[in-house]
């Protein structure tokens, strides 16, 4: 086992451990913070696998924006600072589904690859990813951008009662709330 393998295993253990904490902790905000650790560990695994750009995209989008939005939304609720004892979490079905999917995927991958070793492609530099995305993968890329754009427009329409159904609820608000605009990102 090389140093890289050990690092990868450690990061994987960190990711799984913090992911378990996300769903078992009774502190709502801490669950979000454990999610940061989990996604950060996944970014670390990308780094170890030399996919530098993907790793920092993970940090920028997931740690810097998605989890922050999640925490932001939790903080607008009545979630207490301490533990919430009245959380309604059916544990067994979740454990069954989560564990089943995890084990199933692991078994599938182990069975598919056995001990074949795969040569890592050259480092995932921005240049190479750019050439791939705008070369052979340009159609999925454009389709995704249309999807994101429609989500954006939908978020704006939902958050603004003064557009859409004409005249209805015109007094409901004089503009979109800040967090709605945030969400539309």
């Amino acid at each position, binding site marked *: 086992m090389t140093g890289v393998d050990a690092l990868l295993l450690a990061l994987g253990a960190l990711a799984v451990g913090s992911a378990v904490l996300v769903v078992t902790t009774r*502190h709502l*905000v*801490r669950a979000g*913070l454990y999610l*940061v650790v989990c996604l950060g560990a996944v970014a670390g695994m990308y780094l170890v696998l030399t996919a*530098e*750009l993907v790793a*920092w*995209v993970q*940090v*920028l989008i997931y*740690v*810097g*924006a998605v*989890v*922050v*939005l999640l*925490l*932001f939304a939790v*903080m*607008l609720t009545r979630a207490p*600072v*301490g533990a919430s004892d009245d959380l309604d979490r059916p544990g067994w079905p979740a454990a069954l589904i989560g564990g089943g999917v995890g084990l199933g995927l692991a078994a599938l991958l182990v069975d598919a690859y056995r001990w074949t070793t795969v040569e890592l492609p050259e480092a995932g*530099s*921005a240049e190479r990813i750019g050439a791939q995305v705008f070369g052979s993968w340009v159609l999925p890329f454009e389709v995704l951008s249309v999807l994101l754009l429609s989500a954006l427009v939908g978020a704006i329409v939902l958050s603004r009662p003064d557009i859409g159904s004409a005249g209805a609820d015109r007094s409901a608000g004089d503009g979109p709330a*800040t*967090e709605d*605009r*945030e969400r539309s*990102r």
Partner: protein
Amino acid sequence: MPLWLELVIRIGGVLAAFLILPLLVGQAEHKVMAHMQGRLGPMYAGGFHGWAQLIADGVKFVQKEDLTPRAADRPVFRLAPAVALVPYLLALLVIPLGPNDLVGQPLDIGLFFVLAVVGVGVLAVLMSAWASANKYSLLGGVRGAAQLLGYELPLVLAAASVAMAAGTLSLSGIVEAWQPWWLIWQAPAMVVFFLAGLAEIRRPPFDMPVADSELVFGYLTEYSGLRFAFLLLAEYVGIVVIAALTTVLFLGGWQGPFADAQLGWLWTLLKVAAVSFVIIWLRVSYPRLREDQLQRLCWLVLVPAALAQLVLTAAVRLAL
């Protein structure tokens, strides 16, 4: 030179910059504010020009009791200052000081790296705001998060414009590609980047999250002693990082009037100092923006301006 020695020198250099430059900015802020606003206090300690004021401040912070409120979420509360500091330390690692790899760690996607790690800083705001168990802190934190998330968009778009112009994401590569006429071509992006950067480090006039007249001190209210000092230090490192990024992206980094190869580091430092001075200057001369004005400026002025600049950059790149 053996690898470990080079590594030690590089990391030592970055650490030295991390520890010294923010203090210089802090000292400059004392003096500049004292002169601009006729403040007598900062001019008194130590005799000549109040040189000892910053040291006195440091001693005061160390002596103060490090309080944690009883209702606070202790581990999160205590961790927040570290989360605030580390992203800026990492950002300093890749900002080039001069040509020929005079940088902590040359990175192909340096610009992307900097934007990604600086974006993590918002977590510290949310952590400190939530864990304080104080409504003023929470209000400040929610304001701060809304501000940081909003202003990240024009920040990234403006940086994307200059990356597009240079055709690289490497910070050294951008400085190498930079030419004086970019000062005009990329001027809107520079203004957008600088303003969004100011908002990212919550400096006045964008200090609504810590507005002392309404929120006590926002998400910093419950902090005291060394942890408070660390959060303040994060603000000053933030000034250095934003000034350095503005310098590297828009002001030509180490390119100066002469002797770029030998004196490159000096030109960079001079430009960083000049931009930092402007940041301090804005603090003493502009009133705080109201929350709605702040969001309006971001979404209705800076984002469209950054998008227009992207179109302009693309057009010029295609034409050339």
